[in-house]
């Protein structure tokens, strides 16, 4: 599983970072990004799905590789 944050949609709610700092970073302006290339290790899949389901801007998606 690989995920991505749409920088145009992200408004800095930081819900993803609160749910999984292992997968996401947030800069000083609130802009979220995935750590590394967004690959989700199996043990963090549930957290990734929670981040997707809680983002108020629908900014996180699964990447079809």
């Amino acid at each position, binding site marked *: 599983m690989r995920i991505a944050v749409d920088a145009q949609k992200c408004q*800095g709610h930081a819900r993803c970072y609160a749910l999984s700092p292992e997968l996401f970073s947030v800069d000083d302006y609130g802009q979220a990004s995935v750590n590394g290339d967004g690959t989700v290790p199996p043990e963090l899949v549930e957290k990734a799905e929670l981040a997707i389901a809680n983002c108020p801007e629908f900014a996180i998606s699964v990447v079809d590789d």
Partner: protein
Amino acid sequence: MAHDGPVIDWATDFDVMDPGYVLDPFPIWDELRAKCPVARTDRRKGAWLLTTYADVTEAAHDIETFSSLKVGVIPPTDDAPNLGLPFGLPPISADPPLHTWTRRLLLPWFSNTRVASLEPMTRQLCERLIDGFAGNGHADAAADYAQQIPVRVIAKTLGVPDTLSDTFTGWVRDVLEFADDPVKVARGRQGIVNYLLEEIDRRKADPRDDLISSLVQTEHDDAPVEDGVVLGIASLVLIAGIDTTWSAIGSTLWHLATHPEHAQRLVSEPQLLPTAVEEFLRAYSPVTMARVVTSDTEFKGCPMHTGDKVLMNFPAANRDPEVFDRADEVVLDRAHNRHVAFGSGIHRCAGSNLARMELSVALETWLRRIPVFGLSGDHAVTWAGGQVRGPRSIPVVFR
């Protein structure tokens, strides 16, 4: 035709300051969502009211049609004096481009890193407040606790003395809670403006590590940021950072005082606190924001005209059963919670990280110190409404 007196039909004649609505708006929102869902009123100079998650978030994202130049839920009365804020309260009351660059000045002051640095101070503050009443066996969870927290954290951020906390709280209540009283609004605004203008002058002469100092030393387009903009931003932080978070903390404690099984569960399962905090934010979202229509448009079948006020009811959106299962219940372990308590789109609350930290610390500290508590019945719980909804008095007893 403007109406007075009790509301008969909420779909065509709503009043956000109706005492029954302030006390218990939830069934009214359910009714409006089911049968309108966009309501209309001619009261208070007229407004539309959006009540579904889809409508509220769509309007929040359509910044071309719905401008932020007027965000007040209760309009100023005609005889309100010059309010002394030439640029309004940017970025909240601004559209791009003013919104964009002023928001960028503000955001780093509420980043996760900055907020984390304020957490120890917030924790000590909560402990000290509880020390003040723990031995009494009773307290006002709103006035003695919730109300006392955000104002001091905001004072620290702005770099102003927290010994003036009661004064700041009074000004902000004048502006937000008594928005339909021109004398109080003028008093609150003038208090804030006069005080902050003096602080701005002091920071120019003697800069420190605080938001006001940072703003007066910042340049935009190769020129210092104008005093009026600095004043607007600092006023916004004071106005938006106090009543709102205090309301969220108060509503949370009111809920737990009236649902002891929930308090008990959070005490025995503290790992639920992060999801519970999001759930309290959803179920008791304090803030409704207004927009002004920029050009005649039809929205969900409603003919909206240039200059019309539109109320984006985030609290109602967050109880929309189309989006949330068991929307009218507080579900402490709700895993999927895409709430918009902090708004949606480019005006997402700039202080959301700070508010979330304050609510988390206030709740965790209260439950650790006062795990068993309930309403005392000494006097009624009172609520404020309009722009910001939350309890203003919550008499509780505890062991």
